[in-house]
């Protein structure tokens, strides 16, 4: 088992290296002088020269890469020329809203989707099953922002139950924090409920078709035990996988939701940075998100150890 863990850990290294290279190259592929681009549209020639020196842009590409990686590993993601603050500061300021939104969304999604998917698989071909399938196609077809506006219009404007936009920090009270996050997380979770329910249903269906389910029934076990102990226990691995993928995809969804609901999180930061062509920030955010994705996949892989004894021994 330890070998499995070690191997998985080591497997993340090449991926992270590739990500670093890709992000590094992204900037170099822009037309124009990278230093000028990094400095922003309103920079002076001295500032541009200074950047060039710091990043060693007059040296060879591999050397530049080494310098950049060196900064990265030291925790230095550069300076945002738009906000005039280090990127790391910007990120840490915006972390809480995004994390709150993501955590709430994912929790909601998993709690609703997994039981729905299991139920649909168990009652395969019934109205519940077909209804769920129809709903799930709808769920990931309707764009997040359209749904967001629909809900805002309905719940906030017409019914006045919830605030339209904005975010309240936890430090200022859990109540308002939650109230402001309900609409955004419900909106965002719809996609993930659709996706996770689908895959849950599919993997439970596949598990129910396996031979050991027939054996369990032949032993005279009631259907509930067959479902719980035999089907679900084996479907856990693919379900965990899709939850992991869902969390990773969440990052993309966050961008739009924060934009619509005016939540000052990392998603908004990215969009603003792109509009302002603030490359250090863009790079920093992309690196952060990718790192989180790799980490989550690693955690999901490690969870297999818990679910599947074939990996343990």
């Amino acid at each position, binding site marked *: 088992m330890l070998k499995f863990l070690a191997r998985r850990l080591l497997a993340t290294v*090449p*991926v*992270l*290296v*590739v*990500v670093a*290279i*890709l*992000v590094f190259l*992204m900037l170099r*592929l*822009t*037309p124009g002088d990278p230093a000028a681009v990094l400095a922003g549209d309103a920079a002076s020639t001295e500032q541009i020269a200074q950047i060039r020196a710091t990043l060693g842009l007059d040296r060879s590409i591999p050397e530049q890469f080494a310098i950049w990686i060196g900064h990265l590993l030291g925790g230095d993601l550069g300076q945002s020329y738009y906000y005039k603050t280090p990127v790391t500061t910007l990120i840490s300021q915006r972390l809480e809203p995004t994390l709150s939104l993501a955590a709430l969304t994912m929790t909601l999604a998993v709690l609703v989707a997994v039981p729905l998917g299991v139920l649909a698989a168990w009652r395969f071909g019934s109205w519940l099953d077909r209804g769920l399938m129809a709903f799930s*196609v*709808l769920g*990931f*077809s*309707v*764009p*997040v*922002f*359209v749904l967001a*506006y*629909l809900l*805002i*219009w309905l719940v906030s*404007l017409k019914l006045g139950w919830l605030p*339209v936009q904005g975010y309240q920090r936890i430090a200022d009270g859990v109540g308002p924090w939650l109230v402001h996050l309900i609409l955004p997380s419900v909106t965002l979770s719809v996609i993930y409920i659709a996706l996770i329910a*689908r*895959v849950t249903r*599919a993997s439970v*269906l*596949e598990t*129910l*078709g396996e*031979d050991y389910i027939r054996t369990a029934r032949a032993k005279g076990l009631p259907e509930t035990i067959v479902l719980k102990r035999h089907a679900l226990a084996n479907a856990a691995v693919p379900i965990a996988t899709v939850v992991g993928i869902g969390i*990773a*995809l969440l*990052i*993309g969804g966050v*961008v*739009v939701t924060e*934009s*619509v609901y005016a939540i000052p999180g990392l998603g908004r930061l*990215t*969009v603003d940075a*792109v*509009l302002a*062509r603030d490359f250090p920030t*863009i790079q920093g*955010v*992309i690196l952060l*998100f*990718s790192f989180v*994705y*790799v980490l989550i996949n690693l955690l999901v892989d490690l969870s297999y150890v818990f679910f599947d004894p074939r990996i343990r021994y």
Partner: protein
Amino acid sequence: MNDSARFEQLSIESASIAAPPPSAWARVRRNLSVRIGTCVLGVLVLIALLAPWLGTVDPSLFDPASRDLLPGQRGEITTLDGETIEHRFWMGSDSFGRDIHSRVIYGTRVSLIVGVATAAVALAFGVVLGLVAGTLRRLDGPLMRVMDGVMAIPAILIAIALVAMWRGSLPTVVVAIAIPEIPRVTRLVRSLVLSIREEPYVEAAISLGTPTALIMWRHILPNCIAPLVVQGTFICASGILTEAILSFLGVGLPPDIPTWGNVMAEGRAQFTQYPHNIFFPGIFLAVTVLAVNILGDGLRDTLDPKMARRV
């Protein structure tokens, strides 16, 4: 084995030559999801083609006197020649006085083109890379690591960053949206190639002296088509959605090109007062993506049952 598999096993060996199962095409045509999806998409294609004759004007026209009109209201609009004509704004107008109806109808063209183009580009590159990864063992490792790396970066961020770098225009947006989709296609093709290579009929072809390229063309690729078609439809849906998101965030196509995302972006500031800016393009967007996804579902159920059980 589930019910249908058990049934299949029972109907196997017969002494006489069995009747051939209905061909794939017949199955596809009969599937309800395929029919619904195709119908709706057909209507949308018609709308896109017949745009000039559907009560529209040039989508870039605007008239300050006709700002923020509600759906159904009449107003005036200034044509390119300087004339002022009467026009009914079926879907209302935006804050510049542009006819939303025209912009939404013409936006259909853009969305459909982007969807199809994205799928084409992603499939083309993905197939080539997947074939390479599946056949050249030495390139397989490094290539898949690069694909993993690309997949680690959230797709929307790649698209945003690329469009930001290259400045928005139709080709760049298509490429920017297609690039994050390539790794999934590569993985699919690679796993198909690897599994088909193990089949005895491919081994038979090897021992019959068939050259590798011919084996690829004759035995491997034809069996990849079905899953790729299914994947292609889903990429198309994803492409249309992503383009709308990019435009909505302001990092997509330039605002003078009418796309649903652009229309919504311009209308978001006055959403509370004039929701029609958001709802009409939103409905079109939702219906289009839904239709493509339903079509994809139907194709998958009929053409690729193995994948159907996986997703």
